[in-house]
């Protein structure tokens, strides 16, 4: 295929110019609003401000402060705890529901719609419904608990109660995503595998362990990484549902960064927290990339 190259420039120059012309809007937008702030963030993290003016250059002392800040360790612990509960539970429930939705059911499409629907509700609305449901005085959760004889749970006034309410609300929100991914994987598993296993005498648990589980392996891994990264960045629900309280029992990394950056206005410190978060995200993403590459080589 040839086009008449009537310009005086060599072909590779023309195609390079064309290529970058198509990329120009992306490059401008991302360059100005992502890469520039990213670079600047590193600079800010080396300063200490009190909300006015540029702030003094303090080198790595913000990072040093992180290490000795008990609140920082508390919020990191909270974030890790939150992640370690929400991720496995939402994945297990997602897999269970996917297996269910993959089987023969009446009005299956309706069930699937209901399970996925929470994903389109905003974090703010989700959290406000949570405020309503888990209100420890008038909320329906405690009313239901009292009716079945279990008594009220202090969802607002106790640390563990507040933490539990955050976890439950997040689970409601995230189950649909896990189900979708697992369902797509399950639909790729040929039914003959299960048939022959059944003929060979395998029971349900064996089928689960030796067919289902390995076949959804890549999805499990993908979900693990996505869910972990997402959980480390949780903000909307906590900000609206508990504001990080009571005390700091539901504060997480991002709410702490927000508080420092926009309420206390020590922007250097807030950015240092953000960079810590970036480092964690990079670690997990690198792990995913590494493992998925070896997987591709093996397969």
């Amino acid at each position, binding site marked *: 295929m040839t086009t008449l190259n009537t310009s005086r420039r060599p072909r590779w120059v023309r195609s390079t110019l064309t290529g970058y012309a*198509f990329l120009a809007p992306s*490059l401008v937008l991302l360059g100005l609003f992502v890469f520039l702030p990213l670079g600047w963030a590193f600079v*800010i993290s080396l300063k200490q401000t009190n909300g006015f003016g540029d702030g003094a250059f303090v080198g790595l002392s913000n990072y040093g402060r992180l290490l000795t800040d008990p609140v920082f360790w508390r919020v990191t612990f909270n974030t890790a705890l939150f992640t370690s509960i929400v991720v496995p539970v939402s994945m297990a429930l997602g897999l269970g*529901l996917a297996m269910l939705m993959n089987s023969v059911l009446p009005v299956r499409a309706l069930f699937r*719609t209901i399970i996925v629907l929470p994903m389109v509700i905003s974090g*703010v609305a989700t959290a*406000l*419904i949570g*405020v309503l449901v888990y209100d420890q005085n008038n909320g329906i959760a405690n*009313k239901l608990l009292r009716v079945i004889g279990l008594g009220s749970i202090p969802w607002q006034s106790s640390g563990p109660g507040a933490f539990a309410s955050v976890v439950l609300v997040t689970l409601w929100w995230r189950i649909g995503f896990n189900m979708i991914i697992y369902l797509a994987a399950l639909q790729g598993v040929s039914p003959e595998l299960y048939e022959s296993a059944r003929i060979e005498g395998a029971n349900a648990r064996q089928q689960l362990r030796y067919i289902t589980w390995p076949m959804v392996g890549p999805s499990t891994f993908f979900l693990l990484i996505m869910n972990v990264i997402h959980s480390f960045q949780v903000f909307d629900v906590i900000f609206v549902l508990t504001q990080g309280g009571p005390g700091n029992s539901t504060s997480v990394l991002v709410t702490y960064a927000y508080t420092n950056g926009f309420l206390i206005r020590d922007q250097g410190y807030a950015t240092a927290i953000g960079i810590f978060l970036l480092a964690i995200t990079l670690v997990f993403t690198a792990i995913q990339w590494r493992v998925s590459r070896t997987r591709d080589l093996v397969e």
Partner: protein
Amino acid sequence: MSRGRHYGLRVAVAIASSLILAFPLYWMIVVAFSPRQELLTTELRLWPQHFTLANFDRIFASFPIPTWFGNSVAIAVVVTGLTVSVNLLAGYAFAHLRFRGSSVVFLVLLSTLMLPLQVIMVSEFQLITALGIYGTYWAVILPTAASAFGMFLARQFILGIPREIIEAARVDGAGSLRVFLQIVLPLCKPLIAVLTLLTLLSTWNDFAWPLIALKQNELFTLPIGLLYLQGQFGSDYGATMAFALLSVLPMVVLFVAFQRYFVQGFARSGIR
């Protein structure tokens, strides 16, 4: 097709799960239409005794609800238009144009997708202040539109277009832009549908960045307005739920209408 084993059990579990998952939304609707007194009783009631629209009257009287709706719509539409177009252009470039450094640039741009907002929220705030757009629509629109979301999907999708069609157009003398506009784009309709819906959804529900970028009441988007309203109305749950219901309704309608596209989009977003 046979019903399979444990049919009854599975149906029961499916119904129970759906009831549990649907309950919060059901409750939101119930409370939105319940009068204040009903919410303060200590007895358990699962449906409203008195159906009322008073909550809606109250919120419309106290807050610029239509303005906030307008803000959300305007911002969502502009951001979606920008993001989808920009990423289609880029996806096409990476799929079909040969140029120096394309693989490196592709990876670098894609890597921005895993950057948490929180890392740059402070510096981004300083940037929009320096640019003088703090507190305006553009303070929300521009950083939100600066997203490589869809670039990967676009490239993948466009790679799937048979080369012969492209070649034929080039032989006829069409330049890259014409090929893009007249050949590639019309074939991208499913892709455009998915990207548009997902971007609309995430912009509509966006909370953290508008919270930082806006200051004036009249410019609030719905999530910010919702939080603001709750701050003002405190335990007036009826009012809060009425507004919450209104704010989620557009997305719920879109979802029910275009569920297939949403699910496809959710399933593929982030998959490398």
